[in-house]
């Protein structure tokens, strides 16, 4: 049987299962901590840092922190909020994020966070990196311009034989997320959809499926990300 522990979120005491990931525990308590590289059900990575909170006064990522008895968490301070906004701005500046021509627009987590933080223009110069578009996979389109290197696809997508479909190449600011060209030849529509859904942005798309939800009915058209929770 699960043991329950007491922990504190923004000064209020809550109960959670011992060892639960802090982002999930907070969500269960109705408190929103923004995430990008994290995805429920796959191992956390701690890559994007947007979920940074103060734990006993020190910054730490909430997706990789497990709840223990007495954990004292501050989820939102003016400094944390502007730090998170800066992460969103950096991601917009370092890739080629042309929202008007992106199939994921309206349902993109990065865009939704930019709306949440009211980012009109990044404080950082746009880099306009030269990146490829891989349109030759039978079911998937990989647009490297939009990839934020969260690696959710690497951690989360495997074919029925257990083989990973995505892997990264190169390092640092050159890192690219590749699709295995052999495995990608023969994947089901369901797996292709799963890959598209796991990507927070429009870097993995199912072919022939773009723009199938009208403007106004996409995930974040009317409802801000995290709106169902307190922040």
């Amino acid at each position, binding site marked *: 049987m699960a043991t329950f522990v007491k922990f504190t979120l923004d000064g209020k005491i809550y109960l959670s299962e011992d060892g639960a990931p802090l982002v999930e525990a907070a969500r269960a308590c109705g408190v929103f901590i923004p995430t990008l590289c994290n995805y429920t059900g796959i191992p956390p990575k701690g890559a994007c840092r947007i979920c940074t909170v103060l734990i006993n006064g020190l910054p730490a990522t909430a997706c990789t922190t497990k709840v223990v008895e007495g954990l004292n968490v501050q989820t939102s301070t003016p400094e944390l909020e502007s730090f998170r906004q800066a992460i969103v701005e950096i991601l917009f500046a370092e890739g080629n994020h042309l929202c008007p021509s992106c199939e994921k627009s*309206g349902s993109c987590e990065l865009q939704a966070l930019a709306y949440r933080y009211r980012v009109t223009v990044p404080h950082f110069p746009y880099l*306009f990196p*030269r990146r490829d578009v891989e349109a030759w996979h039978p079911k998937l389109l990989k647009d490297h311009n939009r990839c934020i290197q969260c690696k959710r696809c690497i951690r989360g997508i495997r074919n029925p034989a257990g083989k990973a479909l995505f892997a990264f190449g190169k390092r640092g600011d050159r890192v690219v997320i590749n699709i295995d060209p052999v495995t990608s030849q023969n994947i089901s529509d369901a797996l292709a959809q799963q890959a598209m859904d796991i990507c927070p942005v429009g870097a993995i798309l199912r072919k022939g499926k773009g723009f199938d939800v009208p403007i106004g009915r996409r995930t974040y058209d009317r409802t801000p990300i995290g709106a169902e929770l307190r922040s």
Partner: protein
Amino acid sequence: MPKKIIATASLAGCFGCHMSFLDIDERLLDLIELVEFDKSPFNDLKEFSRACDIGLIEGGCCNDENVHTLINFRQRCRVLVAVGECAIMGGLPSLRNVIPLQECLAEAYLHGPTVAGGATPNVIPHDPDLPKILDRVYPCHEIVKMDYFLPGCPPRADLIWDALVALVTGQELKWPYATFKFD
């Protein structure tokens, strides 16, 4: 209250932002009670006739003429607003920013699949009367100081209206989630 003077320009844009402005519909009648237009495609005035209160810029800078126009607007307008994604970040024209200019022009005018082969050899246009194309498309704030940014492709008419009312009356812009969009 004397009417505020507005000027508008479309640089490397598609005129969609100007069209969205017109989508304020019958509020145009309220607007002309509040403002007067100086240089703008709306009235076809090609030159500034006076100093302006508000300059609205659609589009980024893709050629030298855009840069001169933008600098001129900065000099003539007290408040300068980047309207739409192209003005803010280059927008769709900036798709070419990752391709070297020479390659881009060669594809467009010499070797592209839609270039018709005629009797005369294809050339890259270079008439001195044509604006010189820049190495890449520049967001407006990389050329001059911009005071405000209205995102959207195009920005919703409601946002343009709300922003104009805020600028003209000096009140804070209430910005509902529904009009904060990048597409």
